[in-house]
């Protein structure tokens, strides 16, 4: 009997605030259990944010490794030459076909550009964090303080994948900066198809009773919360959120049915589409401070404030507004 066919289309733009649409498009791959002929149609793709790229590549990688792509499966490249070249530079071609992309365009990659990178252990992620920090620093001409902060955030988020995702495939990281005067920003996206935050966190007996993904994420974002207190301190994501609160940027954490935003925006919602694994996305403003010194100085007070505040709870949104969430 012939394998079933699965057609997935990415049409239009998939920016930072449309990550949920990326997840919805990929959902059929998350739930695959039998091989199928999979056609991923990118012909009408206009834009893929770094975060969407990281998740897209992580998902296809997991699907390929699981042997679920039958002969005849294909990714149809974008019709737009700039979009096609961008995806090739981002290593999407290499990761999906397990072949090196044509050499000529990699030599012409612009300053400050790095492809989406795969990391599977401590030395991998450390190298990826350094590379992406260098790329963003080149592209956005950041201060020394901002460069240090970016490096620390990348390191902490990538390390969480290696220590908590519990998958041999590790994670994927991508970053891009927009140096245009007046709205200089960068985005970092890190994705894994591991066990997810709730499954990881509930390994700690202190949090074994958590049943909701959104409560798990909100709890994981608190200081000194970790599934492995003997090994980890549980403050990496909390420090990142404090950094972004000062900066006016945001961090989005998505796992299971839960997304949570921290930084300039604080929100937690329920989403219908289940995401196995975890995505952490950061969007920051290069024209505002990224000041670790200030964050560390205020750390004790920030933790006390959290302890005095309300505990994580669930907010259900009937009709989530992605644009409003991202603002």
């Amino acid at each position: 009997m012939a394998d079933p066919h699965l057609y997935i289309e990415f049409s239009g733009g998939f920016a930072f605030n449309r990550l949920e649409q990326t997840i919805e498009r990929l959902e059929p791959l998350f739930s695959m259990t039998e091989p199928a002929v999979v056609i991923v149609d990118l012909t009408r793709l206009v834009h893929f944010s770094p975060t969407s790229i990281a998740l897209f590549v992580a998902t296809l990688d997991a699907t390929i490794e699981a042997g679920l792509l039958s002969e005849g499966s294909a990714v149809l490249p974008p019709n737009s030459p700039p979009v096609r070249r961008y995806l090739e530079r981002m290593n999407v071609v290499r990761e999906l076909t397990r072949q090196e992309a044509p050499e000529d365009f990699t030599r012409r990659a612009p300053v400050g550009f790095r492809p989406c990178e795969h990391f599977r252990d401590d030395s991998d992620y450390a190298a990826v964090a350094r590379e992406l920090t260098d790329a963003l620093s080149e592209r956005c001409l950041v201060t020394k303080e901002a460069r240090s902060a970016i490096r620390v955030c990348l390191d902490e988020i990538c390390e969480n994948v290696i220590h908590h995702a519990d998958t041999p495939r590790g994670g994927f990281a991508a970053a891009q900066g927009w140096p245009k005067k007046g709205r200089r920003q960068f985005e970092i996206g890190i994705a894994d198809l591991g066990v997810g935050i709730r499954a990881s966190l509930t390994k700690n007996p202190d949090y074994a009773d958590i049943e909701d993904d959104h409560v798990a994420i909100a709890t994981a974002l608190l200081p000194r919360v970790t599934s492995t207190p003997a090994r980890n301190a549980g403050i990496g994501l909390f420090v990142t959120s404090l950094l972004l609160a000062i900066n006016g940027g945001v961090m989005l954490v998505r796992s299971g049915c839960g997304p949570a935003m921290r930084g300039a925006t604080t929100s937690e919602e329920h989403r219908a589409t289940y995401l196995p694994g975890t995505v952490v996305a950061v969007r920051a403003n290069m024209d505002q401070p990224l000041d670790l010194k200030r964050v560390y100085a205020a750390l004790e007070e920030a933790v006390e404030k959290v302890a005095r505040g309300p505990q994580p709870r669930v907010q259900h949104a009937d009709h989530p507004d992605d644009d409003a969430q991202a603002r």
Partner: protein
Amino acid sequence: MPTTQTMTLKPADEFGPVLAGRGLASALREEIERALVAGHEVVVDLADVDTVSPSFADELFGKLAGAGAGLSFVNVPPEIEPLVRFVVSGRQPA
């Protein structure tokens, strides 16, 4: 009379001004612990360090907080002192 050797480590020379990653800190910590077990004194010189990540701080300062008088940290950047206090207090018994 046996003499005590002093081992000095200067992480910035080898790893640069930003010390990040639990793996890196763990390797340093293990080197320090071996030296202390061997009866040496250890000085960790943080000159030329701009900052450290929370994981690095926890692994090095937090987990070595009870190492004893044979270990000392010098030239600790003032910027990271609050973080060091924070991770050390996090490793104290409740």
